[in-house]
């Protein structure tokens, strides 16, 4: 086939792909229930059978749902396990449903742009992308629908907060039928809340010194389901991953400060994620989508940077800076920038430190390039309306209390007032307090922020911006994985005999090294191996495999580090031998050649 006809084929392919693209382009930027997202994923693999596979990594914690993984990679260009791979997940935390939408859109983005977007095409052809769409499908569903669909007694960690022998029988619900579970406030001289002096719609905690009322009780919207006089006092468990139950730094040295559970990976879904990642050793990058704050977070969560491997720190900074350029989100270490740290207290004894965090496990134990992105932020709205008394020495995400601060909420409310009725809000934002006759509490008011505002964007353009930005960066990120390739093979006859000198030159054409510095520190890095495979009747006096501790990545410079292997082969002319370079994280490349002068 000539080069020209090749190009023609490719062009036809592009046209076909573009047509397919236009058919599915009407992507709806809204929140998808389990049934809807499952149908979308199934549609995608039906439309792109050669590019995507859909499977479950296991049943969810309630046993009622599958945790879907969509595997994206061109099956015609080689087996998945021979290619470098990146892992994405969303919605580890139940209420952070934007994460599950980001992963869902990412799958759509990669598949519908294949053939038309050169970067996406390159990614899908040369690498594998594992997308675990929703890590906690049960919890996400409960957040989106406001309904708990499982028996609250039946799930792990179910508790009986009111000690009446029944677990989770009195949770919140939407009692005024407006589709939102908001807050109830009622005047009560003994109440723990009062209105904020600058905006009476905002409730703040009453101080000990406050004696002048009125004071309020504030609870979640709901009724007294179990008739014990208390409202919402025994809510069912609605989240199944704490992100404090992973093995790394799960507890402080003395046991006092602990992450979740009696032991690491007691949480069913978290264990499934870990088992899945461990079963795919070619995964070298991890991205987990959470909300909120608008920030790309890197390890460590439980340690300061003091002992951070320098090369890894440099790679994190450089790659995540590409993220900032696309998403506007700054880069931070969980411990240094995202945690309230008390000066002079050792890391293990910091009460605010997060133990047993996912990316600490995947980076520290497994040596994988690991990021958690906290999607969506109120910062632009606060910027627009003015910071007022909010301390400006830190970005908003690092201000203690963040969106729970009344001054921040007031700025956000002011922005909402200025954009009242705007279609881009899709009716989300703040519901003004309105009177309601509660069956047991009598006259109360119901109001507050809706579920798609402070912690998840409203459906529509806001959600669209978030997921599109992340998808663009995801492609850049996934393309930084190492990728080993055979550069050159040379054969030379040794004198006038059947002895041949075979030389192979290999290189890592990817951005990152074939192992992170942390992987080598933790002793989990596997060496890269170049092997010659010779048939019966041929022999080599050298070891068949040459090992390199790791191969340096390009980091986008024009210099490529070359690695050489050589063998003396005794074989008749015309013998076919194969050179294979195998890198756990950088993929496999092979070249067959015939021995001749």
């Amino acid at each position, binding site marked *: 086939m000539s080069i020209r006809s090749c190009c023609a084929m490719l062009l036809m392919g592009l046209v076909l792909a573009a047509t397919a693209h236009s058919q599915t382009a009407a992507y709806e930027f809204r929140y998808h229930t389990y049934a809807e997202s499952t149908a979308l994923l199934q549609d995608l693999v039906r439309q792109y059978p050669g590019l995507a596979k859909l499977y479950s990594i296991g049943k969810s914690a309630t046993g009622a749902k599958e945790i879907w993984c969509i595997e994206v990679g061109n099956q015609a260009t080689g087996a998945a396990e021979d290619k470098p791979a990146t892992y994405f997940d969303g919605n580890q935390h139940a209420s952070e449903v934007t994460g599950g939408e980001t992963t869902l859109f990412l799958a759509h983005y990669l598949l519908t742009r294949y053939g038309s977007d050169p970067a996406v095409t390159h990614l899908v052809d040369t690498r594998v992308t594992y997308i675990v769409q929703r890590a906690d499908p049960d919890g996400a569903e409960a957040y989106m629908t406001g309904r708990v669909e499982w028996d609250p007694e039946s799930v792990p960690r179910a508790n009986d907060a009111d000690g009446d022998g029944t677990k989770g029988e009195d949770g919140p619900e939407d009692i005024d039928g407006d589709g939102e579970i908001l807050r109830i406030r009622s005047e009560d001289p003994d109440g723990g809340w009062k209105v904020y002096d600058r905006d009476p719609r905002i409730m703040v905690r009453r101080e000990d010194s406050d004696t002048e009322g009125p004071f309020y009780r504030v609870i979640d919207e709901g009724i007294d389901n179990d008739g014990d006089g208390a409202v919402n006092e025994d809510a069912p468990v609605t989240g199944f991953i704490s992100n404090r139950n992973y*093995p790394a730094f*799960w*507890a402080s*040295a*003395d*046991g*006092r400060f602990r992450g979740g559970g*009696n*032991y*690491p*990976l*007691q949480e069913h879904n978290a264990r499934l994620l*870990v088992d899945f990642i*461990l079963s795919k050793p070619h995964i070298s990058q991890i991205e987990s989508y959470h909300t909120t704050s608008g920030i790309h977070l890197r390890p460590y969560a439980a340690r300061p940077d003091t002992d951070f491997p320098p090369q890894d720190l440099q790679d994190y900074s450089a790659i995540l800076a590409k993220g900032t350029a696309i998403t506007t989100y700054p880069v931070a270490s969980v411990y240094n920038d995202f945690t309230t740290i008390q000066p002079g207290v050792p890391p293990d004894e910091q009460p605010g430190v997060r133990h047993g965090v996912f990316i600490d*496990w995947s980076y520290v*134990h497994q040596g994988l390039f690991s990021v958690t992105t906290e999607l969506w932020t109120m910062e632009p709205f606060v910027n627009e309306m003015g910071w007022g008394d909010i301390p400006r020495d830190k970005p908003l995400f690092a201000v203690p209390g963040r969106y729970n601060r009344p001054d921040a909420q007031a700025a956000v409310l002011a922005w909402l007032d200025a954009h009242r009725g705007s279609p881009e809000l899709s009716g989300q934002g703040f519901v003004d307090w309105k009177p309601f006759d509660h069956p047991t509490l009598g006259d109360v008011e119901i109001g507050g922020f809706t579920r798609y505002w402070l912690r998840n964007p409203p459906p529509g353009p806001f959600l669209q911006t978030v997921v599109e930005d992340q998808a663009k960066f995801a492609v850049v990120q996934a393309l930084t994985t190492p990728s080993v390739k055979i550069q050159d093979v040379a054969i030379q006859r040794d004198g006038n005999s059947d002895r041949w000198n075979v030389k192979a030159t290999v290189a890592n054409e990817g951005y990152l090294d074939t192992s992170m510095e942390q992987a080598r520190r*933790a*002793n*989990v890095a596997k060496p890269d191996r170049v092997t010659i495979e010779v048939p019966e009747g041929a022999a080599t006096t050298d070891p068949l495999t040459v090992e390199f501790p790791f191969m340096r990545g390009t980091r986008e410079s024009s210099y490529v580090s070359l690695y050489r292997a050589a063998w003396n082969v005794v074989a008749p002319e015309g013998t076919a031998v194969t050179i294979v370079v195998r890198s756990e994280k950088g993929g496999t490349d092979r070249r067959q050649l015939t021995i001749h002068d």
Partner: protein
Amino acid sequence: MRNGLLVFAILFLLLQISAGALLGQERALGRYDFRHYYSYDELTAFLTDINEAYPELTTLTSLATSQMGREVWMLVINNPETGAPEEKPGFFANQIHAGEVIAAASGQYTIWYLLDRYGEDEQVTRIVDNLSLYLVPRLDVDGAEAYLTGMPAGEDPNPVDSDSDGLFDEDPPQDLDGDGFIVQMRKVDPLGEWKTSTEDPRIMVRRMADETQGTFYATYTEGIDDDGDGEYNEDSYSSRFLSNRNYPWNWQPDVLQRGGGSYPMEESITRAEVDFVAANPHIAIYLQHHCCGRIILRPPTTGPDADFRFRNDLEVYQVATARALEHSGWNLATSVFDWDQARRPGANRKGTQAYRDKDGNIRNAPYGMYPIPENNALDFSDPANWDQRDRGYYAYGSSLETMYLVFGIFSLADEHWREPDYNWDGLVTEVERLKWNDEELDGAIFIDWHPFEHPTLGNVEIGGWKQSKVSPPEGELVELECEAGNRYTVYLATLAPRVELSIGDVEAIDEQAGLYQVDISVKNLGALRTATEQGEWLGVVEPVRLDVSPSANVEILSGETKVDLGQIEGTSESEKTTYVLRVVDPTLDATVAVSVWSQRAGRDSTVVRVNR
């Protein structure tokens, strides 16, 4: 082993015929034979039989199902007449390592001992009545079966390709000479890495780097090169074993410490064990049996005693482990971390260790326990001793640290059995083992080297130690060791905390006015605190609660109806509270119901009559 099975089968038959009368006289141990190691089926039969013999006192349950489909049996001993299991201090004992079969036998012996003596032996009766006992004679049921039979214990769901050739378990060892044992092969080889010992030519020792003259050997495990790759027996039936390094606390992965696995609680069986312990917060004492060394072990397993946050807990450990030496007749009581140094030949005992000397005296126990205290423990708060921290034995992810540091349970381990250490240097050398083999065992544990024509290696010799892991050979030694381990196990159970109400006489202050007073307090009759200080500090053990509920005819004028007593030290009494009571109608009965609740020290309740 096969002989043992046969003997058991015959015994069982005889028993059914003669109802045990025949054997009762002949065997000190009644109907069960504790002179051999039980296969899984025998163990199941033993436990089922025990359960049928003592249906009120015992419950047989499965803690988990193994990878190969065996049940991990747990026998619960509880007297329902004295309360439900969760109302009493729990005692959890188990055995973990597959090859340590003597340790499993010991746990099995304790089950029989407690039930057989119940109602006759005062101490045993007290234990069974006051505690709930959870006894797991064998956690690694698959591994133990493979060890006992020398064969794979079933279809391995996770086989290991030890030689990375894509095939699994394709080159196991074989019993080439058909003597029933897989031992070693040696072959004269000028480049071999081994030579015979000058002390005894049966012993193989490493050739030194500078040695060129002499006879050298290559050694192999007995067997052929099944897969023809030039290596012998390099891919045998190895499945995942329970490591005692996969518990969650202070865990390290496989790459840093063998046995750690990929993440904590990857092992399904120990995971079920931890789930069980977590679900039963009344468990006060934890014990894990091991072999070998005749040692009583306590935490820490990853640092010196200076890591103990609470001196009180440490002191109780020191006393209990030293006393355990007395009961067991064993040699050494130590933390796991300090243990290592004492295993080196000639090494001095550490100041933190109690031990038995040549004359049988227990030395270095806490002051006052035995005549020779000689406490020379290092003070780790002194920087001069900090380098000692590097001289320990690190066991990350051990059961002891999880159970003590996370669950606050008083937790111990042990090492059953040790071969004779003739010169008392703390190390059993091969010379000593051979002396024992020759002089006392009539050659039972060593097979003398004998020539053999190997299909690929040619002239070799076959011989060596019958088992590399040294439980005692079947026979009387097994029974004696079970007895020793059991004495110490029973002693540990006697330490359990136990709350009891202490109510003084009801005194009338003013009978006309119906005024009375009574002193109420709570005693802890057990040696252990109602919670370890660690458990209290972690918040995993709730405070002891006193509940004083007057009947309708009584009014409490002074004293709380619900009192949080905190935790009560071992063998001591909480502060007395004086209750002032008023009887409303003196013509009617007036009573007060008093009860005490403890999470790990049981419960007690009574009704106090106020008038008449």
